[in-house]
């Protein structure tokens, strides 16, 4: 091999190696299922929200005359990850509003609304509007996880199994009766090398 060939080969190898280091960005469809590891991701959130809203809309949970008014409480994060569960409640609320089967009051804005009504003055108007802020049903739940890791042994990869479960309940405020309850589950196994560069 000539010196020139060696140089060309070296340049070629260097270029090949460097292409792997180049930064890149691509658009991803939010509805697609993308997982890099076993941890909770936006794909999981979309899947469990879809399952539970389908379940809730699939049956009549309230038999009163008018369209029921619902207040959504936080989903308690009982996992071992710092997950913002407000993303789950926001998506469920959106899906239920768009269905037209439920009306909502904003728990977050309730104090602001009360203050605004107080500013407007008329006591009768306040009382009427406060009644309007009352809810018929409460939607609440919890997100849980169970995680198992392979014990430390001589091996090249470490496996991790994670199970997630989102439980939701719809409770009648007047009677305390649970009108609907369901859960969505996910289980995933991931493997990562113990030795790296």
């Amino acid at each position, binding site marked *: 091999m000539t010196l020139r060939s060696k140089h060309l080969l070296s340049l070629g190898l260097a270029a090949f190696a460097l292409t792997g280091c180049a930064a890149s960005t691509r658009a991803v469809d939010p509805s697609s299922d993308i997982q890099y590891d076993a941890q909770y991701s936006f794909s999981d959130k979309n899947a469990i929200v879809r399952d539970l809203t389908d379940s809730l809309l699939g049956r009549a949970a309230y038999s009163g005359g008018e369209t029921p008014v619902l207040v959504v409480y936080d989903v308690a994060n009982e996992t071992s990850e710092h997950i913002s569960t407000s993303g789950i409640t926001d998506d469920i609320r959106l899906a239920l509003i768009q269905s037209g089967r439920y009306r909502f009051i904003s728990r977050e804005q309730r104090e602001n609304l009360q203050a605004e009504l107080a500013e407007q003055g008329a006591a009768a108007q306040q009382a009427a509007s406060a009644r309007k802020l009352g809810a018929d049903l409460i939607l609440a739940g919890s997100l849980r996880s169970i*995680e198992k890791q392979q014990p430390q042994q001589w091996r090249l990869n470490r496996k991790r199994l994670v199970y997630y479960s989102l439980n939701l309940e719809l409770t009648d405020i007047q009677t305390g009766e649970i009108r609907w309850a369901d859960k969505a589950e996910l289980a995933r196994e991931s493997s990562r090398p113990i030795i790296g560069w």
Partner: protein
Amino acid sequence: MHNEFAILARPGLVALALLWLSGCATTVFDHARALHHSGQSEAALAQLQAAEPEIPERDRLLLLLERGTLELYSGQYDKAAQSFVAAVDYIEQRDTISVREETRALLSNEATKRYTGEYSERLLAHSYAMLSFLLAGRPASAAVEARRASKRLEAHPDALASAHFTRAIMSLSFESAGQYNDAYVAARALPEASLPATTARLAARLGSTDPQTEVPAALQRALESASGELVLVVAVGQVARKHSSQLVGVDWQIAFPGYASDRQTLPSTRVLLGAEEAHGERVGSEISTLARRSLQARAGRLAARQALRVATKHRLIDELRSRGELVSQLLAFAILASEVADTRGWYALPARLELWRVPVPAGATEVIVQAGSAETSVPVTPLAPGPVIKLVRF
């Protein structure tokens, strides 16, 4: 064989450079720690933040832990929580063996590797994250850290057997988040009678009685007349520092980290309500003891790596000396001198951490906390519903 070791001669220079550079970050941390331990945490934080660009990536974990501690004691609870969570994530993401780092350490020392923390420090990162979240008014996030701490305790049961402070703050985190079953389990994992009132209260919430828990009469009376609960997190002294021990031969040297055999004598603590001793629950951990046990727990693996490094360096030094050139001789000396122990550690930690749960009667205005002859006053009016947490340092 000679050529193989000749290839390693150049990395020897790199090892020398790394040895020289490793001193810079240690100095930055030491200055900040000295200020923190003298009660000037805000000044220490400002100094550490100014020096952050100088701190190498291999000391990233130390930066997060030290910065989190300073933020906590400066009253920046949300920032402290972020730093500790980042530290926990860093530890979890870097549990792989890096071929590049191991090769470099083989030619120099363990301090050239990324610091991933002793088992005790890894656990305490969760404890401090819980504390930061609780002080920031985010009990649900504190409970997440409590679950992560639980896994850490399961992973190293012997080394972390005396981590009672962590279990107590786990119980507090779960209870504050309304997860009473987990709170009860964490309280029951403590030595008997550590948190008798808490255990009994949690058992009652779960609809049962704890047959093994007997609340002392004085504590029961204090609970009955209490209008609120004060949780005191009392830090005493400074955690023991690792030092480097060395065995030196003609052309070989082994350095290994250790702790001084003499134990610190720490003052005992008391909590007073007015002139009388308060009746409360107290759980404590000797952090220096936890650190010693953690180092002992990985002593076998450390010794195996040292043996391999000494053998490699010995062959390399032989190769360099056989050349007789001045540069080779200097390089051989540098490789020998690069054998120093990794004595890095989270030294902003105290020597002892205590968690007190003190029932406070209506009308009380202050609680006095004493450690030996030193004392500090903690104002307690008005106590909000639920436990109110205060940090105290001696």
